[in-house]
């Protein structure tokens, strides 16, 4: 029917991998910003924030990302909100990523000893200053490794964006498989490319973790 050479497969997959990277970046930046805002709300103990944030986390960690993407793209349109695939992907991936990041980061903030808060407080620093100058710098050090580690999950999670029409790495793989009837070859390439994308990130996370433990 159609004859894909190995190079055709690899070339197409590489092209599709661009979308995987772009979607990952969107997810990470959006998720990071929203996650930070939620973290601050939660840490500052704004009334109701705790309940709200934990409900948020429960919702977006408790349902499949596939469904979140689907509902962001098609569901909003049901209510007359016209969303492009990019908007929907950005919204859904941001929600999903932030729900995980806020949990990860909360643990890191909690790992900063209470005495640090108290010392900053007794030096007349405001809450914002305590957070900005004393707690977050320390929490960040702890947070870098697990955060970078989570990036890997995000990269793999973008595979589901095919449900709203993105032809990213996994989807491209499926499409090529359907034309070539060579699932092993194609999926091996797909797996390899994910590995090539993710492994350096994992490795980096691990080095950071080691470094942190070393000069801790």
């Amino acid at each position: 029917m159609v004859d894909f050479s190995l190079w055709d497969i690899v070339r197409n997959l590489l092209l599709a991998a661009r979308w995987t990277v772009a979607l990952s970046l969107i997810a990470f930046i959006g998720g990071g910003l929203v996650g930070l805002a939620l973290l601050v709300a939660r840490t500052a103990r704004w009334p109701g924030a705790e309940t709200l944030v934990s409900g948020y986390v429960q919702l977006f960690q408790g349902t499949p990302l596939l469904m979140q993407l689907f509902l962001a793209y098609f569901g909003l349109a049901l209510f007359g909100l016209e969303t492009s695939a990019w908007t929907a992907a950005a919204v859904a991936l941001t929600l999903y990523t932030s729900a995980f990041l806020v949990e990860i980061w909360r643990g890191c903030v909690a790992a900063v000893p209470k005495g640090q808060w108290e010392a900053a407080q007794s030096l007349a620093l405001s809450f914002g200053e305590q957070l900005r100058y004393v707690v977050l710098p320390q929490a960040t050090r702890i947070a870098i490794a697990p955060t970078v580690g989570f990036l890997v999950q995000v990269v793999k999670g973008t595979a589901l964006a095919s449900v709203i029409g993105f032809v990213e790495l996994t989807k491209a793989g499926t499409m090529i498989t359907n034309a070539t009837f060579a699932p092993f070859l194609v999926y091996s390439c797909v797996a390899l490319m994910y590995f090539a994308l993710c492994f350096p990130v994992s490795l980096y996370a691990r080095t950071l973790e080691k470094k942190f433990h070393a000069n801790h």
Partner: protein
Amino acid sequence: QAALDGVMKNKLIKIAVPTDFPPYGFVGVDLKPQGLDVDMANYIGSKLGVKVELVPVTSANRIPYLQTKKADLVISTLGKNAEREAVIDFTAAYSPFFQAVYAPKSMTITGFADLAGKSVAVTRGAIEDQELTKVAPPTADIKRFEDNNTTVSAFVSGQSQAIATGVSVADNMIKRNPQLGAEFKVLLKDSPNFIGVAKGEDALRLKVNEIIAAAKTSGDIDAMAKKWLGRPAGTLP
């Protein structure tokens, strides 16, 4: 109600096509969709005199695309049944679709009763799934897979003893995997394909029906079927 007006005004029609269902819709080396459904989409676009934007869809999202107006038409090997008609509207049929059961030559299957105790791979929710579920004996082990390709892969890798799928799909599969020794066993259903239109978009539906009717008379439908299926379309409802 205004889909046709919108199409004519924007000079653009968005048509959902499959990319996982050769020879109806699959991709070439440039990852651009091609196949019978794709040709049909382009054909309708040219008859309307508008540009065509192809929207690659999967079986899970093709109907939502239509319902949320992200696509005007779905040309994606849609078979018709009463339940489906409650949700979307269908035009006239535009291509034939025969489903049959295939199995290795060494296996004797002369009727559906012979499927008892055997495993049969089928694409989940496809017309052949519904048909097979109706006619197969209860002891037949029907394994339903996500898409056509997974179904074929399951059969090719020996995960199922038989497969129920489209005739042209099977031809292709047998050609590429001669070692299987698979052959046609029994015809499941002759279930032609229809084009899906959002509920109530009668203007668009009638317009497409016109185009299909004209194409049948002019032989264009037969030509398309010949090109992709290797046989003429025959009589379509």
